[in-house]
């Protein structure tokens, strides 16, 4: 028996749940509608009407390099930060003395909350001037490896610098999630490993990492999502280009979707805005795919997960 108040409450709550779907649908629908003029433009129309649109390209040809740049910057950031984050998280959860670990955990939480514009400021003003010798060294010694082909640009407003700042940015986020997961690794399994004669590292490998794998994956995806959508740090550091380029140490090679939107939006006429929103739609789809892939990976391992 549910009175009027009960029914009202239930419907309000359900309405709020549905509202979320409505908001998301509104975002998606709006993106598509607003991007439509650009998507349906006849060939050549975009470069004809939009100042910054490259000559003779279609919308897809325009978005392609941006998607590439976005993925490249985020992927490198993830490659840099992932092992470090897992390391820090392990240090806090299983290596550091307990009192120190609590303090460190708190510090990491605080760092995770530092706004990205601050990281951009730090990257642009403090880090960039210091990176040039390191990148020059990389280019001199590892130039045979195509991504590190030189000469390294000066100032190093290159994709590797951007990725480094992004890595620093997502480091606390990934670490915070990993640490939380590692701390939840069942003592039961840790002791089982130790009792079998495992060293600390072997115990971590046998009992902690397998248990934490879904958590590590979602942490990585969280970090990747952040890196994919990050605008300010890229805008403040990178010398953009629009190539499918692997060169990490040269300027004018890549650009990310988010930074391109922020860069061109103020100057854009209605068709330009439409084009930018089409790129935003691409970014939206990418984050959606990343999210769903992460969920699929986590779900597939449910059988062997510790959750039972």
């Amino acid at each position, binding site marked *: 028996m549910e009175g009027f108040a009960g029914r009202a409450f239930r419907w309000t709550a359900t309405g709020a749940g549905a509202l979320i779907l409505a908001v998301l649908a509104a975002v998606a629908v709006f993106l598509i509608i607003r991007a439509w003029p650009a998507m349906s433009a006849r060939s050549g129309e975009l470069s004809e009407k939009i100042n*910054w649109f490259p000559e003779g390209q279609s919308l897809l040809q325009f978005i392609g390099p941006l998607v590439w740049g976005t993925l490249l910057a985020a992927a490198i950031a993830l490659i840099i930060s992932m092992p470090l984050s897992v390391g820090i998280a392990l240090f806090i959860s299983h290596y550091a003395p307990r009192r120190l670990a609590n303090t460190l955990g708190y510090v990491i939480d605080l760092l995770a909350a530092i706004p990205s514009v601050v990281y951009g400021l730090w990257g642009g003003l403090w880090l960039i001037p210091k990176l040039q010798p390191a990148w020059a060294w990389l280019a001199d010694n590892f130039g045979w490896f195509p991504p590190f082909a030189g000469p390294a640009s000066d100032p190093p407003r290159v994709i590797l610098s951007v990725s480094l700042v992004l890595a620093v940015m997502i480091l606390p986020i990934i670490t915070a999630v990993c640490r939380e997961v590692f701390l939840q690794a069942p003592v039961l399994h840790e002791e089982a490993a130790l009792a079998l004669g495992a060293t600390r590292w072997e115990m971590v490998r046998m009992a902690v990492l397998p248990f934490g794998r879904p958590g590590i994956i979602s942490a990585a995806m969280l970090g990747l999502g952040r890196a994919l959508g990050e605008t300010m740090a890229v805008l403040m550091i990178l*010398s*953009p*280009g629009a190539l499918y380029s692997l060169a990490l140490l040269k300027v*004018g090679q890549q650009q990310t979707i988010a930074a391109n939107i922020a860069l061109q939006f*103020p*100057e*854009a006429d209605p068709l330009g805005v439409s084009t930018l929103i089409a790129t935003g739609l691409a970014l939206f789809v990418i984050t959606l795919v990343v999210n769903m892939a992460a969920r699929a990976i986590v779900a597939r391992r449910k059988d062997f997960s510790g959750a039972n």
Partner: protein
Amino acid sequence: MKLSLHRRVGAVALTGALAISLAACGSDNATGDAATAGTDTAAASDLSGDLNAAGSSAQESAMEAWRAGFQATNPSVNVNYDPVGSGGGRTQFLEGGVQFAGSDAALSDEEIETSKETCVGGQAINLPTYISPIAVVFNLEGVKELNLSPAVIAGIFDQKITNWNAAEIAADNPGVTLPDLAISPVNRSDDSGTTKNFTDYLASTAPDAWPYKADGVFPVAGGQSAQGTSGVIQTVQGGNGTITYADSSKVGELGTAKIKVGDAWVGHSPEGAAIAVDASPRVEGRIPTDIAIKIDRNTTEADAYPLVLTTYEIACTVYADANDAALVKAFLSYVVSDEGQTASASAAGSAPISAELAAEVQAAIDTIKAAA
């Protein structure tokens, strides 16, 4: 429970107190100048309201000075300027988002046509408010000044001349020790009036070396680039062997090039820029109050510096709102007044427009009116 209740009340009280004290202690009197606070009633006008503008980031320094000066005598007026770039400013103006726009390029005939809708019954007019030399700026250790001909500048920015000790550069700079160092040309990454004037200059003076047309978007890819005048200057400062083109007001300590005009080498200066502008014709086919200037890049006037940017305020001849019209008139009149021109020259290092031009612009401003 009782304790936590106390704490709760305390926390709420504290937050409230903090908010109130925060709200009470703030002020718009940032400079400590009494006039800003509105106490100087004698000088204060009866104008009030918000005047929103957007546009060229090159105008930013000058605009800051103008706004400070204007708001000091009109404390009830807020003049806001969003330095989104010339194109953005024009777009926002044509869409009716702002009352006037700052632009480094005059409106095209097409845009003027569009503006007739925004400017209820009137049209948009271009009002030159200052001229600014575009300096070719470089960061080269031990070198403060170089002679660069249009063809060499074009070669450098087209990434054809790639080293500072290239023969082309050395030929024009006898006695200067040029280092063996890669040249990193830096361009604007956003659509900008500075780029448009710069590429127009190269296309007009060195058509052989510069195969591109005048464009607000830099046509050559693969170089350093940054957003806004400050961005490119910051990039040039951050690297060795870098070179860019930028509004001379932001140059600071960096080295600048003398460009070749006729047979002479001319450095950037406000006076040189003013000479180049005065020697240039108007854009044809416009109404008398629309003062758009077509810079003659190939001028051979003595001491003229034709790598110059004329900046415009773009306003309507007719405004739907009377207050808007009054505010625009008052502000733009201040801008072209001696006081305004001195302020921008001091803050931005720009060249004042000549007295004759100023009189013409003022006459055009006087025709701005509100719709009946």
